[in-house]
Structure formats: C-alpha cells, structure tokens
C-alpha cells in the first residue's frame, strides 16, 4: 500500500517535468493561429513556416555556428590545460582549477553585466558575433574542463609506462593510448558545451544589439511581443534535438557521466 | 535460551540461471562455531544472506527455536551480522556505530553508555568510543564491527569472510580473538570463509560447500581424516588421490605398482575405489634396493615441515609427501628416494 502511494507520487512528480514541453509540442501541431490548448487539429504548418522563414533560419544558423565554435574552443583549451597542469604541484593545480571553475559560482545576471561591461570597453568586440562567441566560451570553460579533467585524472600512469617499455615514443603514447582513453571525457565536454552555448540566453540577453541574434534570443523577443505558434514549433524542435542528443549520449557514453562526475556541481548549466 | 537453527531444503536460483543453492539442509546447534567453507561462487554467502534476511529462498524453510525465521523481515531477526567490508557507518563515531541497535530501540542514555562501554571492553577497544572510524586500523575496525553486532545480544552472529582483507599475522590474531569471544558470549557463530586453514583453526564444525550443495559437515578432524568425497579431500588440505583395488587380503595401487596388506580401516571395502592419502602418510627415505622409488622434483621448506613432490613411474601427476624438516636429510631436487605409503589413515573418497 505504502509502496504504491510512493510510486504514484513519484511518477506524478516525474511527469511534471516534461509537462510544459508536452504542452508546447501540442500547441505546435495545432493549426489554430492563437496559442491555445488543447490543439484544435493536427497540422505541421508552423513547422513549415519556421523552415521557410529567413529570420528564423538565420538565427538557427548563428546559434549553431556560435555553439560549434564555443564548444571547440573551450574543449580544446580544456584539453591543453589538463595536459599542461598534469605535472603541476597540487597546490598550483588546485588554485588554477578553482579559477577555471569560478564562473560557476557567479549568478548569471551578474555575469551578464560583467561581460556587457567588458565588451563595451573593447571597441572591436562590441556588438559583434565574436563578442557573443567569447561570452559563450567564457561560460563554457568550466563545463568543458570538468569532464576532461576527470578523464585525465583517471588515467593510469602504468599504462603509459608499459607502452614506453615496449618502445613507444611520447607522441605515440599520446596518440594511441592517452587520447583514446580520454576520448569519452572529450566527447562529453564537446556535447555539453554545445548544448550550453546553444541554449544560452540569460547572459546573451545582455549582448543584444541591432543585427545580433541567436535562436533563443529570437524566441524571447517573439514571446515578448506576441507569441505565435511558430515559437511552439521551434521550441518543440529544440526539445527533440536535445532528446536526440541525450539518447546519443546514453548509447555511446552512458548517462552515468552526469551522475557520477566527482563533485555534484557537475550539473550546473544555464538558467 | 536461544535455540537451534534448522535450515531445511533451501534452494535459490539467481536471474541469469545460476543455481546458487540446491536443496541445502543444515542444523546448527546452540552456541556452536560453524564455518561454511567452499570456493567462490559455491553458495555459502548466499545461504548466510538468506539467514540474515537480505535474500529470500525460492524453496525451503528456516526455523530458529522451532519458529519460522524466514517469514520475519531482516530488521526483526535476532541475528547479528558482520559484513565482508564491515559496513561501518562513516558518519558516526565508534560509539555511535556500536550503540546503533540500542538507539533504534530507544534505550535510555545511561543504559546505552554502559552497554557500549561493556561491548568495547569485550573487544579490547575501551576508550575508543569518541574516535572516528576513519582513524582506526583494519584490525580495530573489525572489532568495532563485532562489538556493534554483539551489543544487542543476538541469538546468532553471521560473519561474511570478515578477515579476508587482513594480512596473515593479523588474521591469525583475530581468529584467536574471535574464538575466545564466541566462547565468552556463548553466541552461535556462523562463519563464511574460503580459507580452509582458517576454518579448521577456529570452527567446532565445518560445512563444505560445492556449487550450491553441502558435500560434508563435520568437525575439522572428521573432514580432514575422513573426507566424504574427492572434492572435500582435495579442497581441505593437500592430498594424493589414487585408484585402488581390493585383491583378497591385499590392496593394490596400480598407478604405483604397489601391493600392501589391507589395513583395519579398509577391511570392509571391496572392488575398486579411490583412496585419498595425505602427504604426511607418504614417507621418503634414502634409496633402498627394492620397493617403490622415485625422483624428487620439487621441495618446499616451511619451517617445521618439508614438503616434496616426487615423480614416480606410472603415476600421471606426481606424488606429494610431507615430513618433519629435521628428518629430511637427503631429500633434494633430482635425488632418487624410496617411497613408502601408509594406508592406515587413507580415506575412501569414491567408488572407482
């Protein structure tokens, strides 16, 4: 008896999580011009409008571009830093790691103002996509570093020693042994930072300027004015994209990465 | 008075098809120290966990003192347990760990304090109450686990290979302490181990397990001297298993080409059978003219004893012998020796 009560309670709470997303999905397939629930029919017209709209497509392209760039830059920097800090004294590495992870303890509104202030004082970055990209890279740095550092941390020195004993040179060891073993960490860093950047809005809000927009920003401005169902279609697509990435992650690396990384503030993303 | 534990016809199959226990029955007398001995995967730990209440048997029943134990949930069984990894609560002090079962029963503070002190004294850890468990050595943590389990005076204590993580000397020391503790508290101890020396050293009786079945139950002496099967003979201590024929008044050992007068112990055995002959019943001496002889292939000096492996014509695997080291002159690798076999202590471990 108590068990079923517990189970039902939990399932109710669990279904509460995807509920708004389900609602949005339902709205997106309703042909009605006004946002209404329940859907009045079934139609993919809003999706068509999304793909046909140059404004939306541009925003999509920009978001993707920035996300890829931010992901690659922050992950590469993370791998280099992890390699660089390998032999560092524990105290040095500790300080460095605290600094790298520092952005995680700042509220996003404060970070937004900070980057706004920073970009405002640099002439060529202000109001450009590179400025936004830099902002995203700064936000992604901790999220790239964590999984990469954890993977390096788990490296067993004796593997490299065994390889060396069998005649492998340092570059070969790096290539054939180290990098393959650290690969899962690198891949999750790439995926995670991509998601962080793609979804980023709070800080990006501070960087709006004429002509600068990302997909989430476009959604936001549409919502402010007059929400139309195309927004629902875009949102649903984003949800499906995320779902796909999560399933991909689960198949390749396993979701344990989210749950098991040392320290529980693994899971700090955007707000 | 705590009563007898009766395990009757217990079977358990794990998902994946592994038959962990197959119709196992065992009676454990009050106040006895019995070991469940066997190689990994033989079911001994599974049986222990069933008695503790963490697994349920598919079939069979368990009664304590005549009452059904297997129907009682784990937390209501008068059974204490010491886990293999000890499972000490990391967020509590030594005293907190030891007092746990009393705190659950909401005993008064004064009573708890006294009983904790007594329990710690019992395991020679007086004064360690306020310490954190992380500051303790392996042996000390062992003792905390014991105190914790015994403080509520359970009818029975189950121990799941508690000493396996310790080094040899410490293990020997704790084996002795366990034995003394058991006698002092007069609690029934059920002890799981894969180490046959350990089992023989401390138990009143041993139950030898193999692939979910009990092959033999008896005292250490019984099991060593009169093993019921080849497996038991080979698992407990070392032995030579040879085929034998009864030939009138004699016993013939074809693999050695040896014929000897049948001893009293083998008087009633006929036909062909398997004999287990312990190394201490194989003696080596300087080569005599006739009789069985062989070449020493390996020797192993163990302080008091010298063990040797002797190659004998006709025998596939070599013969193992053991003798007192100071009587073993001339027993060296490569040397030829004469071999004598004493059948009086041999045990029949199978029809051929």
């Amino acid at each position, binding site marked *: 008896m108590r068990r079923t009560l517990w189970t039902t309670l939990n399932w109710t709470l669990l279904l509460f999580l995807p509920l708004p*997303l389900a609602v949005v999905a339902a709205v997106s397939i309703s042909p009605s011009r006004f946002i209404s*629930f329940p859907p009045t029919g079934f139609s993919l017209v809003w999706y068509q409008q999304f793909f046909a709209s140059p404004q939306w497509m541009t925003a999509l392209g920009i978001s993707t571009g920035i996300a890829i760039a931010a992901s690659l830059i922050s992950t590469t920097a993370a791998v280099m830093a992890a390699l*660089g800090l390998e032999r560092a004294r524990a105290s040095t590495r500790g300080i460095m790691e605290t600094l790298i992870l520092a952005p995680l303890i700042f509220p*996003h509104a404060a970070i937004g103002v900070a980057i706004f202030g920073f970009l405002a004082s640099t002439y060529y970055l202000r109001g450009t996509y590179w400025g936004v990209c830099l902002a995203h890279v700064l936000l992604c740095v901790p999220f790239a570093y964590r999984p990469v550092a954890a993977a390096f941390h788990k490296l067993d020195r004796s593997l490299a020693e065994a390889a060396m004993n069998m005649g492998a040179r340092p570059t070969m060891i790096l290539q054939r042994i180290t990098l393959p073993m650290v690969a899962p960490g690198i891949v999750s860093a790439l995926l995670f930072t991509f998601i962080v950047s793609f979804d980023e809005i709070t800080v990006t809000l501070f960087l709006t300027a004429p002509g600068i927009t990302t997909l989430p920003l476009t959604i936001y401005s549409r919502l402010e004015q007059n929400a139309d169902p195309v927004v629902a279609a875009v949102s649903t697509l984003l949800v499906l994209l995320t779902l796909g990435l999560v399933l991909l992650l689960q198949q390749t690396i396993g979701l344990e990465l989210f749950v098991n*990384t040392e320290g529980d503030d693994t899971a700090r993303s955007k707000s | 008075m705590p009563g007898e534990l009766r395990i009757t016809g217990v079977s358990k199959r794990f998902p994946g098809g592994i038959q962990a226990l197959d119709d196992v029955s065992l009676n454990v007398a009050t106040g006895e120290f019995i070991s469940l001995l066997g190689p990994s995967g033989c079911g001994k730990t599974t049986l222990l966990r069933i008695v503790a209440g963490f697994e349920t048997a598919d079939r069979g029943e368990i009664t304590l003192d005549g009452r059904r134990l297997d129907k009682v949930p784990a937390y209501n069984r008068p059974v204490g347990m010491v886990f293999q990894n000890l499972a000490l609560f990391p967020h509590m002090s030594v005293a907190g760990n030891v007092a746990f079962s009393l705190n659950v029963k909401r005993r008064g503070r004064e009573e708890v304090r006294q009983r904790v002190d007594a329990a710690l004294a019992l395991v020679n850890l007086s004064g360690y109450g306020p310490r954190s468990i992380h500051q303790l050595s392996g042996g000390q943590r062992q003792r905390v686990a014991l105190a914790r389990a015994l403080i509520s005076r359970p009818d029975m204590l189950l121990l799941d290979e508690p000493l396996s993580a310790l080094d040899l000397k410490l293990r020997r020391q704790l084996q002795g302490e366990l034995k003394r503790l058991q006698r002092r508290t007069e609690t029934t101890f059920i002890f799981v181990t894969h180490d046959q020396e350990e089992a023989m050293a401390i138990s009143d009786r041993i139950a030898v397990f193999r692939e979910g079945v009990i092959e033999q139950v008896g005292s250490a002496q019984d099991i060593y001297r009169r093993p019921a099967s080849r497996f038991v003979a080979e698992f407990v201590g070392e032995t030579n298993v040879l085929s034998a024929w009864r030939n009138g008044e004699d016993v013939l050992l074809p693999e050695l080409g040896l014929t000897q007068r049948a001893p009293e112990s083998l008087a009633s055995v006929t036909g062909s059978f398997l004999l287990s002959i312990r190394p201490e019943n194989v003696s080596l001496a300087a080569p005599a003219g006739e009789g069985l002889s062989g070449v020493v292939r390996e020797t192993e000096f163990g302080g008091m004893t010298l063990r040797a492996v002797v190659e004998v014509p006709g025998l596939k695997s070599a013969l193992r012998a053991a003798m007192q080291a100071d009587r073993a002159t001339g027993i060296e690798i490569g040397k030829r020796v004469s071999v004598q076999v004493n059948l009086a202590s041999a045990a029949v471990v199978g029809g051929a």
Partner: protein
Amino acid sequence: MIAPSGLSASPLARLLLVTPKALLVAIFLFAIGTVVVGSVRDNDGNFSLALYDELVRSNTIQILTWRTVKVAGLTTLICALIGYPIAAFIANARRRNLLLVLVISPWLTSVIVRTFGWIVILGNRGLLNNLLRSLGITDGPVRILFTPTGTILGLVHVLAPFMIISILATLVRLDRRLAEAGMSLGAGPFETFLRVTFPLSLPGVLSGCSIVYLLASGAIVTPILLGGLRDAMLGTQIFQEIFALYNFHRASALAMVLLVTSLVVVIPIQWLDGRLRKLSGA
C-alpha cells in the same frame, strides 16, 4: 617518472599549454572587475559611493533584495522537497536510465522553451484556467502569471533537475551494505533511512541547494516572463537598468548586491558540504 598521459614536455611547454585557459580566466576576472569598478563610479566617471549609499538608505533596493532572497529561497526549498523523493525513487528504480532521460531532457532544453511552456499553461486562457473553468471550480481566470507564484513555479520546474541530479549522484554512490547493516541491527526501512541513508546523502542535498539558489537568484528570463516587471527581482531589475534605463553603474551596483547575497548563502553551504564530506570520510 613519466606523466600519466605519457607526454614528455618541458615545464615551459606545459605552461604554454595552459595559456589559452588562463587567458580566458583572466578575461572573465577582468569582466567581473568592470562590474566592481562600475559600481563605485557615477555617470561622469568619478569615484563615488553614491550607489552604495543609496543601497543602505533606500527602501527600494532593500525590498528588491529581500524579494529575490525570498523567491530564490522558496524555490530552493520546494526543489529540495520534491527533488529528494524523485532522486530516491530513481536511485532504487530498475529502469533508472529511462527515468534519467525524463529528468535530464528538460534540463538540457533552453530555459526559454520551458518558460514558454508555463506561459501556455498558466495564462488567462491557458491550460490551467481552462481546466479549472471546465471543472467549474472558478469563474474568472485565476491569476498566476505575472505573480511571484508564477515565477516560483517556473523556477522550480527549471531548476528541479539540478537538485535531483545532485542528490542522485550522492545516493548512487552510497554503499548498499550500509543500509543492510542498519537492518541487521534492527532498524526498519524508515529508521534506516532516517539514521543512515539520509545523513549520508546530505552533501548531495546541500550541493543541490547551493546550485539551485545561485541559479534562482541570478535568473532573468523566467522571472520576467512569468513574474512580470512589477514585482522585480534583482536579476530583472539589473536587466531593466541596462536596457531600459541605460544606467550601467546602477546595474553594476545591483549586480554587486546580487553577487554578495548569493555568495553569502552559497559559501557557507559549500563549507558545510565540505565538512560533512570529511566527516563521512571522503
């Protein structure tokens, strides 16, 4: 002794490797610096503590701060209350991966998408009101949108997965034998949970609380869209200051307030978390 990666590089080379990250860290710190500096300047660029003066005297900023703390605090509390049972449920469930997908997917979706969902549900002609009306419970629309309740609801939904994952990570790493030991010592399921499991899972709860509080207090999108601009929080006000009022300095000052109040909450929690971990023998 070779490095775990096998790479043999001089200390200088290693230093160079760290440079990109170090540069990024420096930029970040510099950016924070502009906020600190900006908060003690006035519009003419002179050093001035006027804003902090206003902070101490003015009622508005105090109300703002207090509201932010309240909303963020309530959000954290609710997230902990609903997050723990869910985490415990998932930890013991057999189809854990499926459940994790359910929890993680919303979390990885942009906050704007999730907030949009709540707009649809809570609006005057939204799902909730339609439901209530058709059930005959209310006549007029129940106003949840553009109230602090709406903000809290939205924030809880957005941030609950962080709490769940944080608690789950700790629960999953607990030794199962500890619960069995508790039971072998006579503690029933509930007692075992109370005395053994829960205390050991506290670090995860605390971690989750600090994450959720941090994110809630610094949130902008959800409070603006679901709470409106009338009952502003620090985050929304900061945004207003920059984009509606063009007052960077005021925004910086508010950002400093936000920073300080979050750190005041988060740092003790992290410290407590660290102590608890050490106590449990990390």
